[in-house]
């Protein structure tokens, strides 16, 4: 195991991560191209923070999450992770037989609480399964652990013998959370954890996740396309477009002073929950670029209002423009973009 340097407050550092999926064609299944789902992404996650990962569908948010979990083996790049003992390992190149300890430390919460729980297993089996697999507990102790976990996520332990169909969407997401937390993870990747839930239940789950983070010193990577939810939970936000990061900053900074035209358009597209604030939306023309056949230069230039000749040929690099605000746009210093502004709650 090689030791690498990682600043103390950094939990995870992703550098030059690439995940290219081959496209096969014909009888011989020749490779005719690649879908560049994640293309050269650099990202750091600090200990005990919540990093929001946003972007449109197909931009590669979920693929990054799966690479970090090593559900996929990345095509190239490094994923440096600081483990419980403080040692730094590269998850991207770790052989599969050495991954098991990290399956305990890195856990995932899934989007759809209906398809992510096995309908033939009781809650006890679902939540207890990771504990058995990792040999943490069995028998009476297992039952006690599961009961404690259920209580922690706000479910009654008496429900342990029931099957998932007996629970509502919000309760199922709580069961999913209990399973995630069973092994006392350190980094939790939550992939759209509240998108399938009703608004009133969303708030319950978001508040629960917040409380659990505080109690258990968790680090979250929170993947979502809902910007108002991300603003509520995230400390920092990373914006993706067609497999690349376009902007990373502190949440408040990013929402109020976006420096990338794509971020500006995304923020403008979110419907504001106040009829007195109806403003002219920036409507992006056309569709998201195809990651198998991206445009030249800056991937965003065909839809960008500010695109110039340089954007068509030269691909912008991510650069720090001060105070930890990272952006990939040639004209980030010149453009004055519109954030969401001060919105006073009308309630």
């Amino acid at each position, binding site marked *: 195991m090689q030791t690498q340097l990682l600043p103390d407050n950094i939990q995870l550092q992703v550098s030059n991560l690439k995940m290219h999926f081959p496209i096969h064609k014909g009888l011989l299944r020749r490779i005719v191209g690649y879908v560049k789902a994640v293309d050269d992404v650099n990202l750091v996650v600090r200990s005990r923070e919540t990093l929001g990962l946003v972007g449109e569908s197909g931009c590669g948010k979920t693929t990054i999450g799966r690479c970090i979990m090593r559900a996929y083996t990345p095509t190239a790049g490094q994923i440096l992770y600081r483990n419980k003992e403080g040692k730094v390992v590269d998850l991207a190149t770790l052989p599969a037989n050495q991954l098991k300890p990290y399956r305990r430390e890195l856990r995932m919460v899934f989007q759809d609480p209906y398809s992510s729980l096995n309908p033939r297993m009781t809650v006890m089996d679902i939540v207890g399964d990771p504990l058995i697999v990792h040999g943490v507990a069995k028998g009476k102790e297992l039952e006690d652990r599961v009961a404690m976990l259920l209580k922690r996520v706000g479910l009654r332990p008496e429900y342990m013998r029931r099957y998932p169909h007996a629970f509502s969407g919000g309760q199922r997401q709580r069961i999913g959370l209990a399973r995630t937390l069973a092994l006392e993870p350190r980094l939790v990747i939550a992939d759209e954890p509240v998108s399938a839930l009703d608004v009133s239940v969303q708030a319950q789950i978001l508040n629960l996740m917040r409380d659990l983070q505080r109690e258990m010193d968790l680090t979250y990577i929170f993947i979502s396309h809902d910007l108002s939810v991300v603003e509520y939970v995230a400390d920092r936000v990373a914006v993706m477009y067609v497999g690349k990061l376009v902007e990373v900053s502190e949440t408040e900074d990013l929402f109020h002073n976006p420096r990338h035209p794509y971020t500006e358009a995304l923020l403008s597209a979110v*419907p504001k929950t106040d009829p*007195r604030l109806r403003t002219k939306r920036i409507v992006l023309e056309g569709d998201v670029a195809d990651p198998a056949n991206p445009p030249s230069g800056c991937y965003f230039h065909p839809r960008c209002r500010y695109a110039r000749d340089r954007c068509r040929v030269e691909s912008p690099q991510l650069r720090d423009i001060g105070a930890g605000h990272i952006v990939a746009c040639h004209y980030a210093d010149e453009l004055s973009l519109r954030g*969401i502004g001060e*919105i006073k709650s009308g309630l």
Partner: protein
Amino acid sequence: MLDNTLLEVKGLKTYFFLDEGTVKAVDGADLSIERGGTLGVVGESGCGKSVTAFSILQLVERPGRIIAGEILYRRPNRNGGQMEIINLAQLKPNSRQMHSIRGGEIAMIFQEPMTSLSPVHTIGHQIGEAIMLHRGVSKQEARKQVVEVLGRVGFPRPSERVDAYPFQLSGGLRQRAMIAMALSCQPSLLIADEPTTALDVTTQAQILELMQQLQSEMGMAIMLITHNLGVVAEMCKEVAVMYLGLVVEQATVDAIFHDPLHPYTRALLHSIPMLGIGKAQHLNPIKGMVPDPYNRPRGCPFHPRCDQRMRGKCDVIEPPLVTMPDGRTVRCLLYSGEQ
């Protein structure tokens, strides 16, 4: 019925008779839509928003049935230009009159544009079918009109795309095709059931913009069913809030967001994250969950989750519909002089 009202739903009850019991999906809903106006219908899943829409179009499938209530629709009389008021709830789903209203005068677009379009027919064929049926024009003429309406909803190169199959289109374009189909016969009411829920925010902005633009051009009324309060705040003039089959409050959009009367409306607004406030805001989730549809609570259906419930009243008395001095309506005992 006021002169400028296009559609008024009064005491609508649509029940589903299942082996396990009766699901009262819509249980006394009241709402009204102005001519050319936009009414938002909001509520959590299972509150009866979609069933109300299906009831208006007489599309409720068995074992569901409209068992009570009126759906008054004001339609221009074909002969004189005089207005006539008809009760859609009493029409037979298969009657000729219902056929001409459904799709021709009241059109609907659905949430999932992939499953609501036929995968084995071109979009031109599907849109043309509606035009031929309601306008009685020839195939060639219908095709010409399809190209025109596709251009109107912002299809690039409509004369080529008319022969595209749904799987060849992106989600945004599919929803545009659905809108083109709904608008091909110039309806006076468009029912849009979660039209942007399956779309990304940027595509959602495109579709909402398109709907607003078409509304101002064609003057139709829109009934927008959604659970996204942001979409409602941006699009609607009036809002009806539904809970467990009842419209608990209907008012102007400004009143709903800035002076909500019903405790459920207030609780709903407090439970959503607002853009621009971030971590500083405190979300107050509504406690508990939507009750089981088989056994609705007695009295006011919201009382078990309500902060302001009055013991011995809310759990017994079914709150009547109260019309406030400014014309808005609310169903809560706090406003009916019961306190």
